[in-house]
């Protein structure tokens, strides 16, 4: 259900851009979704098709770029990939790590006519 609220967020952003620029139609919306964001892109597209009806964003395709989750170890400095949200350094097993990517969730750009 919360995907609907999120979808409305995307439409709001598109509508704001439409006020700033002059375009007739949005063909595509590029969004960036990190693996740690908890967002399921397919669900967003489904809700988007319904929620965007009658707005400037109607008919637009959502193009999703997934970003892998990565951490950097504060102890040994190694960078590792994250699986299943487990934030443990693969080199030295430390939990003292910093998330360097994977939390992204933003609209990157609009493809318009």
């Amino acid at each position, binding site marked *: 259900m919360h995907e609907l609220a999120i979808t409305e967020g995307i439409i709001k952003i598109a509508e704001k851009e439409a006020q700033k620029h002059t375009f007739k139609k949005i063909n595509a919306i590029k969004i960036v979704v990190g693996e740690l964001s*908890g967002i399921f892109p397919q669900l967003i597209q489904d809700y988007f098709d319904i929620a965007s009806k009658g707005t400037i964003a109607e008919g637009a395709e959502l193009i999703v770029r997934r970003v892998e989750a990565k951490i950097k170890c504060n102890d040994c400095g190694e960078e590792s990939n994250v699986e299943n949200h487990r*934030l443990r350094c693969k080199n030295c097993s430390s939990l003292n790590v910093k998330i360097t990517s994977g939390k992204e969730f933003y609209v990157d750009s609009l493809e318009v006519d």
Partner: protein
Amino acid sequence: MEIKVVKQILEWNEDCSNEIKETFQDKKIYMINVMGSPGAGKTSLIVNLINELRKEFKVAVIEGDIAGQIDAEKIKSMDIPVVQLNTDGACHIEAMSIKHILQYFNLEEVDVIIVENIGNLVCPAEFNIGEDIRIAILSIPEGDDKVEKYPLMFATSEILVLNKYDMKEHFEFNDTKVENIAREMNQNIKVFRVSNKTNQGINELVNELKIKINNKIKA
């Protein structure tokens, strides 16, 4: 033509959450966001927290539910200011709903606001509501696989309450495994083994909260 935007999709919620945080910083109010499945024991834990925290602080409650006011009535009978927030089908509480509801409280007379979020391990985790702390409740009968299955909830909570701990002998619940996985997702998470029936673990949890509340409201 491509237009570069780069805008956070949940920005509207984050902005509103930050606004609430500023208000609460100003008014010296500490907000606790209680999350967990339906039946995990959120209301029972809140009742127990109220009984302890009210000895030292002025406590108010926001009861989030999809429909009805059963929980709000229970809290009201304890003579605690409470407002029911019905989300009308929505699976989570957003910061905007909290902001609108604050007018029903006399904020000068509140030290701690406890928010009971909608019973759900998924959606509430996505939305900050201006809280100082998130408590995720996982009850023993729900099973020890829930942390793995619903990572965001546990990755974003400062406290994990393993509730109904008195029932542990009846279930195959490996609490050490749960604690280890939770810590892998969230190195700072603190785990409390609690029973609202026997009061096991309540004091430890209350003491932890008291320190955090005092750090904010007496600073």
